[in-house]
Each structure stands twice: as structure tokens, then as C-alpha cells.
């Protein structure tokens, strides 16, 4: 087995240390400005990457991130694990019982909140593919990806906003949360299907087979898989060290599910996400354990992942103002109209519907993960990726204030 040399180990550790320190500094600044940590972490990456450090101090950038190929491979492995874990905790956040208990109004919001932004995201790139940076490949897949990118939402940002506005436990809050959960499950399923057509398996797997595998795996995991989890978790909680046993075996199961989906031709993230849903929905998964896993991933893996975004792409040279503007407009219009219409259909008032639309508009970390995987799969250009990251940040930063504004209007109305 090949090993890292002495200098490569030092390099890797310096990379991780610098990424974690800068991520923490900028996350704290973001916190002071009442913004999500991910905003600060992305900015830290831009500062540490080719955009700023690489331009101003190229020698230092080269030494840190381009001097040892093996260190970079090891770092990439760390980032890959981070993505899988981020999707795992995204799955843990989904609570099917909350979704089911919210009834038709939430389903109406999630349905229109998914279909309308998806349609907006699909149509514009399908007819103006070149404008969106499409060069070669499958235009349909590219447009389907853009539809998914516009339809997905970021539950952590949404929950934070609702908590800040003291709306989390309100009827509206629960509806937004459950609608976002449904959209995320469907969004990640669609994205996994798209990705399976991008890989090597594209030629061997038919669309029907891929959809069957994806949906079949999801249904299996949240029915039979969950029953098995419900049988195993009490034993783990009782017999093994707590929370050590639960955390290590949950993560092991996450990696196994991720490996399985990757093996059968669906992306690893989907396995991690669905396993997260199955474990998170188990009545034996304690809230304390969920909190610990969240803290573990959010503070050790997530910062490195978000900083790594800035290392991969030059945000200055790839910043296309018009493209960024169009992507942001499509994102806002699709989500606000879609969710707002769904809420109106569900009997909410005009301003409440706007508030729901703004609340659901936050894309946050999920958009960035989605974008990065698409970039690495060669589905999108760096320019479009930058536009998606900026859109994710702008929608996350504005979600809270816009929701507050709409709620104030609702009070006055």
C-alpha cells in the first residue's frame, strides 16, 4: 500500500489546518452578521484559493495546494467523505412523520415548489443552453440538472430562518419544513438519476432501469431498511458504548449504503442521503445522537468541503455577471412563484404565501454540493458553477429578511 511521504503528510496537515482555521474565522464573521456559516466558509475558500491567495501570493498558494499531488489526492478523499456525510445529515434531517402529519397544504407547497422552479430551471437552459455555458454533451441532461438545481432547497438555512423569526413551531413553519423535506427527497432522486447517465454506466443502464433502481432503493430503505434499523438500533443503544457505538455504526452504515449505490450505478450521495432518511426517521434514533452527528459533520467535515469549493475554481475569472444575474432571477422567480402558488392553493393569504416562497427559496449548502458534483461530472462549466454558488449564497442570505418583510406585511394586511 502506497504511503504519503513525510513532506506530503506535513503538506496535508497544513492544508487541513489552514482550511479549518480560515473557515472558522469567516464563519464567526458571518455569525456576527447574522448569516449562515456556509457563507463565511465559502468566502474563506475564495480567499485561500486561486481567486485571491493564488493571485496575490502565488508562491504561497503553490506551496500549500499545488506542491504535492499525493497530498491533494488525500485531501480530495477527505472532501469526498465530507460530501457523503453532508448528504447523510441532510437525510437525518428529514422526518417523514412530520411530512405526513402536515397534510395536503404542505404537499401542495412542495408539489408546486418543485414543479414550477424545475420547469423554469429546465426551459431556460434548454432553449438558451449556450448562454448557460453548455458546450457539448446531452442538452436534455444539462437542462434536467438545471431544473433540479432550481428546485432543491436547504433545510438547515430554512430551519435557522424559521427559528430566528420564531416561526419554526408555527403551522406555517412546519409546512415549510415538511415541503422542503419532500422537495429534497425528490430533488436528490432526480439528480441521482441524471448523474447515473453521466458516468460510465450511461451506456449500459437504460432510463427505466435507472429509475427503478433509484426509486426501488429509496422505497426499500424507508420500509424494510427502516424496519431492520428499528430492530438493530435498540440493541446498539443498549449494548454498545453511547454515543460512540451509535455514531460509528451509523457512519459505517452510511458508507456502506453510499458504496452500494455507487456500485449499482447511482451516485454514492444518494445512498448516504436515503440511509440518513431511514435512520433519522427511526424512533430509536435519539435526538441527542442526531445533534452530536450534526455537530461532528458540520464542524469537522463541512468547513473543509466548503473551503475546498473556493480552491477548485477561480471565482474572479469565472464570474459572469449576466449569467449570475439570470441564474438568481430564475431561482427567485421559480421558487417564490411555485411555493407561493402552492401556498395560495392551500388556502394561505397572499403575504403568507410570499413568506413561504421566500422561506423555501434558500438553497444553501445543498445547491453547492449539487453544483460541485455536476461540475466534477463534466455536466456544467466553471462559470455556471460560480453562478450557482453565488445564487446559493444570495438566496440563503436574503431568505430571512424577505420572509420577515412578508410576515410584517401580512400583519398589516
Amino acid at each position, binding site marked *: 500500500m502506497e504511503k504519503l511521504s513525510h513532506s506530503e503528510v506535513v503538506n496535508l496537515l497544513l492544508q487541513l489546518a489552514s482550511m479549518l482555521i480560515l473557515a472558522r474565522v469567516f464563519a464567526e464573521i458571518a455569525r456576527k452578521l447574522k448569516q449562515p456559516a456556509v457563507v463565511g466558509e465559502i468566502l474563506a475558500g475564495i480567499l485561500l484559493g486561486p481567486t485571491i491567495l493564488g493571485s496575490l501570493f502565488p508562491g504561497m498558494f503553490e506551496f500549500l495546494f499545488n506542491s504535492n499531488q499525493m497530498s491533494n489526492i488525500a485531501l480530495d478523499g477527505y472532501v469526498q467523505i465530507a460530501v457523503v456525510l453532508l448528504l447523510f445529515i441532510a437525510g437525518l*434531517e428529514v422526518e*417523514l412523520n412530520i411530512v405526513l402529519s402536515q397534510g395536503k397544504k404542505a404537499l401542495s407547497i412542495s408539489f408546486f415548489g418543485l414543479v414550477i422552479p424545475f420547469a423554469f430551471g429546465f426551459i431556460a437552459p434548454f432553449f438558451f443552453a449556450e448562454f448557460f455555458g453548455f458546450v457539448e454533451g446531452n442538452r436534455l441532461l444539462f437542462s434536467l440538472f438545471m431544473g433540479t438545481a432550481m428546485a432543491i432547497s436547504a433545510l*438547515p438555512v430554512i430551519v435557522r430562518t424559521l427559528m430566528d423569526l420564531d416561526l419554526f413551531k408555527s403551522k406555517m413553519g412546519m409546512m415549510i419544513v415538511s415541503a422542503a423535506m419532500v422537495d429534497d427527497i425528490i430533488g436528490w432522486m432526480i439528480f441521482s438519476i441524471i448523474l447515473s447517465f453521466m458516468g460510465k454506466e450511461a451506456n449500459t443502464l437504460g432510463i427505466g432501469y435507472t429509475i427503478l433502481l433509484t426509486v426501488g432503493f429509496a422505497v426499500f430503505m424507508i*420500509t424494510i431498511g427502516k*424496519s431492520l434499523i428499528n430492530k438493530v438500533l435498540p440493541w446498539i443503544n443498549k449494548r454498545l458504548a453511547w454515543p460512540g457505538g451509535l455514531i460509528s455504526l451509523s457512519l459505517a452504515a452510511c458508507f456502506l449504503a453510499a458504496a452500494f449505490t455507487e456500485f449499482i450505478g447511482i451516485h454514492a450521495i444518494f445512498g448516504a442521503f436515503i440511509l440518513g432518511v431511514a435512520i433519522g426517521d427511526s*424512533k430509536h434514533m*435519539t435526538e441527542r445522537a*442526531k*445533534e452530536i452527528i450534526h455537530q461532528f459533520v458540520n464542524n469537522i467535515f463541512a468547513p473543509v468541503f466548503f473551503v475546498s469549493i473556493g480552491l477548485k475554481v477561480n471565482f474572479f475569472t469565472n464570474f459572469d455577471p449576466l449569467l449570475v444575474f439570470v441564474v438568481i432571477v430564475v431561482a427567485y422567480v421559480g421558487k417564490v412563484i411555485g411555493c407561493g402558488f402552492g401556498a395560495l392553493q392551500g388556502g394561505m393569504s397572499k403575504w403568507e404565501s410570499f413568506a413561504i416562497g421566500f422561506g423555501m427559496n434558500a438553497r444553501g449548502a445543498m445547491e453547492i454540493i449539487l453544483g460541485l458534483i455536476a461540475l466534477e461530472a463534466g455536466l456544467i462549466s466553471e462559470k455556471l458553477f460560480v453562478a450557482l454558488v453565488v445564487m446559493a449564497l444570495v438566496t440563503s442570505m436574503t431568505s430571512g429578511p424577505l420572509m420577515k418583510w412578508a410576515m410584517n406585511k401580512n400583519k398589516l394586511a
Partner: protein
Amino acid sequence: MFHKIALAIAFSPRMEALICESKRLKDLFNSELLLIHIGEKSQLEEGNLKTILEKHNIDLAKTKVVWETGKPVKKIIEICEKEGVDLLVAGALKNEGFFKYYLGSIARKIIRKSKCSVLTLIEPSFDRNPFQKVVINGTQQEQTPYVIAKGLEWCKLEQTKKVFIVNEIKMYGFQMATAGEGGGDEVSATRKKLVAEEVIYVENILKHLDKGDLKVNIKITCGKWAAELVRFSEDIKADLLIVGDEGNLGIFDRIFSHDLEDILGDLPCNLLIIKKYSV
């Protein structure tokens, strides 16, 4: 509180104990008693039933026995509606196997479909003891104020020694992890706030109710409310759990099991489901 109590009987070893329990409830609520048997009427069974009723001093003239044939669940529900029953008593097993859970036993089908309140007894006894440790669901739902009111009414009549109202913090782990982006003070403040909000919710309901001499304890848990209720009821060895109705639950709710189905899947103790418009 209940004017007409019905007991669904099958000629099983537990039938006599169930009749004893129903008699106790009939006396407690000063109500009428109706016995429902779905199956062929035979002289032997009729005689057996008469012997049991006489043995337990049940006034045969005031007790109606309905013998019907057909699909048990459908028939029992039809009879209850026709007779104006407002509490249906049925025996049930504590937990059932995989297939029975998904396909549904008679007792669970009755619970899911009945329009009147249902008392499910998992360990009916001849002792006729009142319920001494009662747990009431206090989770934030539309029907909760009504369920708590009716639950306390029942407990006052029973002179229950300990009443627990259990409310839970929704998505506690996720909320705390989200608050974890803030400083230590914010985390601590959020934790206190989450607990306080749930206590206040129950207190606000209780302040409008006459509790009599009851000792009512409010307990806050975190997790899924149904699973937490089951856990809490088992921990304190409760003898009755009172919850509200969640509407007509079907197989979809069992596959993607939620809330009430979690309780039905593993009954921790006797279960009273209060249906809002029946009492």
C-alpha cells in the same frame, strides 16, 4: 362522559376479564352496556355468556347483546354507529407480528376506523381496579386541548393517583445543531426556550380546566411524540395511555409509519383513543 359503552366480544380466554372491565366502566360512567359478537349465534355460546354476566352481577335486562354475522370490523363499527355508542372497548395483544402489523388485526382495524372513542385493553383483569398511573398526550396538535380535558375528566372520576401530560420538542436535535452555529449562550438559551415553550403550551391548556384533586405532572421529551409516549409509559409502568385521534389511518400510514401507528405497533399499556366528536 360516556352514555353508551360497547364491548366487542369473541369467545376467547380473555372475554370474561374484558366483561369485568366493561362492567366497571359502565358503573363508573353510569352508562348503558352493549355487547357485540360477530359470528354465528349458538345456544352453547349464548348460555356461556349468560353465565358470565350473571356471575358478575350484570343486569341482563339492562344489557343488550347484539349477535351479527359478517365482516367483524365493518359490522362492529356499523352497530356502534347505529346504537349511538360513544366508547367501544376491545381487547388487543401488546404487539403483533410483521404481517399482522401491516395487514392489521381486528382490534387495530377497529381503532383505526371507529368513529367513537376506543379503549383497548391489553391486560384486562377481574380485579376491576381503577387506572392509577395515566399518561396523556400533550403534543401540540389541534385536538390536544380536547384530549387533555377529556383525559382529566376520566382521571377525576377514577381518582387517578398520578397523571402525566407528556409533550415533546419537535426536531430537537436539528434545532440544537442549528443553534450550535451560535455561541455557547445561544445554545443554552435555545435549550431553555425549547423546553419552556412546551411547558407553557400545556400550562395554558390546564389553566382553563378543573383538575380537582388530581396531581398533574408535565413532562417534556424530545423525539417523535408517539415513540416518546410509548417509552415514557413503559418507564413509569403506566396503566393507561390517552391520545387523540389522527383520522382514518390506512396501510400507507403503516408502511411509512407515523405517530399513532407507532403506538399501535407496540402498545405500552391500555390505550384510550379519544375521538373528538364522539363524547
